[in-house]
């Protein structure tokens, strides 16, 4: 048994390294189609990593969303935009400063973090035992994640559905088909007849 567990940890390490390399490749590659292909691979890799970290539900979602929906969306965007980054990547000093501070803050914090894989980290001791017990007795649902998701923190999930709903409405507002014929789409000039009188007008109307 011990060898197999070690194996899982080695897989974990290798996958994480590959993940970092993929991210680096995404950063360097200019061909946007390659970026999409690599992003798909990135999602699958992270999903594999999530499986090794025991987060099967999350891996399930990440695969469906990251590798499936995201890829299709990005392709849809590429179909409507251009396929190549115009400028070769250059070093951005502001970016370097920002990531330096972000990274430094996190690295500063790591010594006090609970050890990776520790069974006595506060998260496991404080609330979670009652969740495990509760989902066995009160809710009687074997998948503890479902029990927490749908019942203990069901309100978060309601919010999550609202988020998806918001995104759907937003995309329809932005990209939905116009139905000029149904409502009689009024031209902008008709809406603002006095705009031409304005002496110091802002230019640049939407040309779509």
């Amino acid at each position: 048994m011990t060898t197999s567990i070690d194996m899982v940890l080695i897989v974990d390490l290798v996958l994480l390294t590959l993940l970092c390399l993929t991210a680096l490749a995404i950063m360097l590659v200019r061909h946007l189609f390659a970026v999409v292909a690599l992003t798909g691979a990135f999602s699958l890799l992270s999903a594999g990593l999530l499986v090794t970290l025991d987060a099967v539900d999350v891996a399930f979602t990440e695969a469906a969303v990251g590798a499936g929906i995201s890829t299709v969306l990005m392709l849809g965007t590429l179909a409507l935009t251009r396929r190549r980054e115009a400028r070769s990547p250059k070093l951005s000093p502001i970016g370097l400063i920002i990531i330096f501070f972000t990274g430094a803050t996190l690295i500063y914090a790591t010594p006090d973090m609970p050890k990776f894989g520790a069974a006595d980290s506060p998260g496991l001791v404080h609330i979670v035992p009652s969740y495990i017990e509760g989902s066995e007795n009160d809710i009687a649902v074997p998948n503890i994640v479902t029990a927490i998701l749908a019942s203990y923190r069901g309100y978060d999930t309601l919010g999550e559905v609202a988020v998806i709903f918001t995104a759907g409405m937003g995309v329809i507002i932005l990209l939905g088909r116009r139905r000029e014929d149904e409502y009689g789409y009024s031209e902008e000039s008709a809406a603002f007849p006095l705009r031409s009188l304005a002496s110091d007008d802002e230019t640049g109307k939407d040309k779509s």
Partner: protein
Amino acid sequence: MRHHLILRVVSKMLIPFIMLFGLYVQFHGDFGPGGGFQAGVIFAAAFILYALVFGDDQARKVVPDKALILLVPLGLLIYALTGFAGILLGGKFLDYDVLSSDPTHGQHLGILVIELGVGITVAAVMISIFRAYAGRTKAIDKEDW
């Protein structure tokens, strides 16, 4: 119709199984990995596959835009109304214990219903989003690859 014959046949055979898998994920979420969100995505994937292989107009015949705009809010309504049902039956918001005389059974019922709501909204939103992108006329034709 001459080309892509294999793709068409395979897709036609596969789509019912994808939907079956979607249903399995939807209702088996209590026992294994899965749940409403994942099932919704799988359902949407089946429709997206159909639209990709058989064309956007055919897909619109299967699920018309009007049906979609009804389904998107429906899932969220189911979820939120389950919450209100908790209040009306004398519990708190989203309290499933009161949904049935037996609290454990109530929990099961609540989880089943809300997961269904999640599934409906997610599937409808994903199809709408895909359709919004696909329905946009192409802006450019030839460019460097």
